[in-house]
C-alpha cells in the first residue's frame, strides 16, 4: 500500500517530474499527428494509384494485342471461382500516340496515351465515370457531344485540309492506311484534364485559389496520330473534344485520352483485338487466388495477369519505406523523453535518499523500494501517453483549422493548394498505430526508470539515513 501512496504522492508533488510527463506527451502527440497525416496522404495516394487501374488487368505483351476478347471473357465467367469473384470486365486497347491541336493559331504537339474503351463496361469496372467532369456523363458515360460542343465544332470545321501535317516525313508518300480526311462522323475524345488545362499561378480568383486556363474546349478538334497493330505503320484521325477526365493523379490526367474502342480498333487495323481486359473483383482480398486461377486458364495465351498493386509496386513500396523510416526517427523523440526520465529520476533518488533510508528502517524491502520508482516511471509514462494521445487526436481532427490559423498568423502558406490537388489536409486515424505508440512510450518510460530505481533499492539504510 505504501508504494501506491508514495507513488501517487510523488506524482502530485514533484513538479520537476511533470517535465517528463510533458516530454512524453509531446512525443506521443507528434507521432500520432504525423502518423495520421501520413496515413491520410498515403490512403489518398493509394486511392489515386488505384483510381484508374482496375483490380486485375490481363495484358498483352506487345502492341498487337490479343484476339477474341469476348471469348476470353466467356472463359473467365465459365470458371466457377472466377464467376463468383469477378463483378465486371472491360476490354481496352491502349497505345502511345501524339496529340496535335491549335491553340491561338499555334500548333501544339503532346505525347499521350491513347485508350480505346467501351464506356458502359469501362464504368462498371470502376475508376472512370466518377472522374468525368461533365456531371451528365457520370451516370451514362459516352462520347456524345452536347449542344454547346456541337455548335462550337460546326463553327470551327474547316473546308480545307488542316494547316499542319501529321507526323512523318512530308517528302515520303502518304502512309498507306490513312483514313479519308473529310466529312464523316467525327468521333468524340475524352481528354485528361491536365492536357486541356494549365494552372495560371499569376491569376488568382476571389477566394485566393489559382485558376485553371483551358486550352481545349468541348467541341474543339484534335488530331491523334499512332501506329497500327501488326505493321506499326503510322495512322491518324481527327477527334472532337467532348469531356475531360480528372482523377487528380497527374500520371493519368496529363497523359490519357479516351476514344471509342471500335473506332480505334478499325483505325489500327486491329478489328477484334484488344491489348487488355480490365477486371473488377467483388472482394479484393481474394485477388491472389483469382490471379492464380487466371494464370492457369490463360497459360497458353500470351497474356500477363497482374493486380493493380503489382503494376504500381514501386510507388507503394516507396510509401511504405518512407512511413517506416519516419516512424523510427520520430520515436527518437520519445527516446529523448526517456533520457529525461533517467536524469530526473536519478535526481529524485538522490533527493529522497534519506526517505528511502527511513522506509527501510520501517521495514520496507529493497524490492518494494524498486517497485515504487518503477511504478512512478510507469505512472509518468501512462499520464504522458494519455495526455499525448488526447492532444494528438485533437490536433489531427482540427488540423485544417490549425493550418489556416498558422498560415494567417505567420503569413506563410503552409499547405499550398496548388501543389496538391486536394483542398483539405487528409488525415487517417489509425488505431493500431496509436496503440503501438502508447505502448512504446510507456515501455520507454519504464525502461529508463529501471536504473535509478535499482540505485534506490540497493541503498544501505544506515548510509542513506546519514546522507547529507
Amino acid at each position: 500500500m505504501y508504494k501506491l501512496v508514495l507513488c501517487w504522492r510523488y506524482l502530485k508533488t514533484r513538479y520537476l517530474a511533470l517535465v517528463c510527463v510533458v516530454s512524453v506527451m509531446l512525443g506521443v502527440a507528434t507521432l500520432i499527428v504525423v502518423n495520421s497525416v501520413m496515413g491520410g496522404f498515403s490512403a489518398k495516394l493509394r486511392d489515386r494509384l488505384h483510381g484508374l487501374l482496375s483490380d486485375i488487368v490481363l495484358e498483352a505483351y506487345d502492341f498487337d494485342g490479343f484476339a477474341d476478347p469476348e471469348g476470353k471473357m466467356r472463359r473467365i465467367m465459365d470458371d466457377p471461382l472466377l464467376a463468383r469473384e469477378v463483378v465486371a470486365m472491360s476490354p481496352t486497347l491502349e497505345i502511345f500516340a501524339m496529340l496535335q491541336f491549335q491553340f491561338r493559331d499555334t500548333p501544339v504537339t503532346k505525347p499521350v496515351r491513347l485508350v480505346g474503351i467501351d464506356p458502359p463496361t469501362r464504368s462498371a469496372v470502376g475508376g472512370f465515370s466518377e472522374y468525368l467532369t461533365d456531371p451528365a456523363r457520370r451516370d451514362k458515360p459516352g462520347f456524345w457531344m452536347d449542344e454547346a460542343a456541337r455548335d462550337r465544332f460546326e463553327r470551327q470545321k474547316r473546308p480545307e485540309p488542316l494547316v499542319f501535317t501529321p507526323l512523318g516525313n512530308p517528302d515520303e508518300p502518304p502512309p498507306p492506311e490513312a483514313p479519308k480526311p473529310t466529312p464523316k462522323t467525327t468521333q468524340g475524345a475524352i481528354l485528361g484534364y491536365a492536357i486541356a488545362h494549365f494552372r495560371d499561378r499569376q491569376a488568382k480568383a476571389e477566394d485566393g485559389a489559382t485558376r485553371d486556363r483551358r486550352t481545349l474546349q468541348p467541341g474543339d478538334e484534335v488530331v491523334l496520330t499512332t501506329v497500327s497493330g501488326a505493321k506499326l505503320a503510322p495512322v491518324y484521325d481527327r477527334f472532337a473534344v467532348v469531356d475531360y477526365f480528372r482523377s487528380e493523379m497527374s500520371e493519368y490526367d496529363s497523359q490519357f485520352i479516351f476514344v471509342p474502342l471500335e473506332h480505334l480498333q478499325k483505325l489500327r487495323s486491329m478489328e477484334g483485338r484488344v491489348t487488355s481486359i480490365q477486371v473488377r473483383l467483388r472482394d479484393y482480398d481474394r485477388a491472389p487466388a483469382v490471379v492464380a486461377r487466371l494464370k492457369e486458364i490463360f497459360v497458353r495465351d500470351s497474356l500477363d495477369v497482374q493486380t493493380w498493386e503489382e503494376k504500381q509496386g514501386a510507388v507503394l513500396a516507396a510509401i511504405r519505406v518512407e512511413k517506416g523510416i519516419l516512424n523510427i526517427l520520430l520515436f527518437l523523440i520519445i527516446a529523448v523523453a526517456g533520457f529525461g526520465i533517467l536524469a530526473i529520476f536519478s535526481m529524485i533518488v538522490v533527493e529522497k535518499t534519506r526517505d528511502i533510508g527511513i522506509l527501510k528502517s520501517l521495514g520496507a524491502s529493497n524490492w518494494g523500494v524498486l517497485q515504487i520508482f518503477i511504478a512512478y516511471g510507469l505512472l509518468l509514462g501512462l499520464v504522458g501517453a494519455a495526455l499525448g494521445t488526447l492532444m494528438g487526436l485533437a490536433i489531427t481532427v482540427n488540423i485544417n483549422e490549425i493550418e489556416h490559423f498558422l498560415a494567417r498568423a505567420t503569413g506563410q502558406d503552409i499547405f499550398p493548394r496548388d501543389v496538391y490537388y486536394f483542398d483539405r489536409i487528409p488525415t487517417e486515424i489509425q488505431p493500431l498505430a496509436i496503440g503501438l505508440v502508447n505502448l512504446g512510450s510507456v515501455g520507454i518510460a519504464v525502461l529508463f526508470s529501471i536504473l535509478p530505481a535499482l540505485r534506490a533499492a540497493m541503498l544501505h539504510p544506515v548510509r542513506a539515513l546519514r546522507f547529507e
Partner: protein
Amino acid sequence: MIAESATTPVLEARQVRKTYRRGAIATEVLKGVDLTVARGEFLSVVGASGSGKSTLLHLLGTLDQADGGEVRLDGERIDNAGARRRDRLRNQAFGFIFQFYHLLPELSALENVLTPLYIASSAWAWPFRRADAVRRARALLERVGLGHRLDHKPRELSGGEMQRAAIARALISGPRVLLADEPTGNLDEDAGAEIARLLRALNAEEGLTIIMVTHNLDMARSTDRVVRLTHGRVDLSPTVLGNRPAPGGYHSPNDGGDRLSLDRRPASMAVLGAGASPPAHPEVFGVGHFPQR
C-alpha cells in the same frame, strides 16, 4: 511461537562485532559487545563519538548486519535472519526514532504515523484495515500530544512536534522495543525535555522497552540503566555518573537497592510524579496485542 518467559531478556547481544570499510581502510567499530535488555527496561547507551553506540543500536534493530557475534530477540537469533524476516522485524518488532526526525515530507502527520501499516499491508487488503488503522494512529497522536496536528505536513510542525510524530510512528505496530538514536540531539532544551518526559511516560505507563543512545548524561541518569561504550566495547569501569554503578550484565528482577526494580509501576509513578493509573491506551500499546505478529 516465542518462548516468552519472565527471565528471557527481550533483546540480547553476544560478542557483537562490526567493521566499517571505506575503500582500503577498515575500522573496527564494535569489538565484541555483550548486552542484555530486560522487558520493560529503559536503557541508555552513552559513550564518546565514534564509540559505536549508534552502530550497536542499528545492529540490535537489524538495520545493519554484524560481522560477528549474535543478536537475539526473545531468545531467538535475528542477526542471521533472511532479508524478508528482518524487514518484518523492523516493521513490527522494532520501532526506530532518530536525531533527525525523518518524517516523509509529502505525507501528513497522520499518514506518516500510518506508514509502517502501509508497508505491512497490500493495496488490496488496505480498505479493510484502514478504519482500524486510522483509529489507532489518531489515538497514538493524541497520546503524544499531536491530536490537533493530524493533517499537518512535516514542514508545518516544530522540531519537537516532528519528533513526537516520529515516536507515534515508531509505536503504531506495537513493537517490543523502541530504539532511539539521540532523540533530543536536534532539539532545544525545552523541546528536548518534553521528549524525555514522553519517553519516560511511555516506559512507565505502557511498559515499553526503550534503548536510547544519548550524549545527554542528565537524560541518561533518569533512565533505569546506563551502559557505556568505549572504543567499541562495553565499559565495565565505574562510571562518572555518580552513585549509579555501570552494569554490564543482566540484573535479576529481585535486585533492589538504589536501582529501580523491574516491577516498576508504583515506584516509577512515585519517581516521575505521574498519576498512578493503569497503563493508558492498552488498545494502542498492548505489547503482543496486534494479530499481525
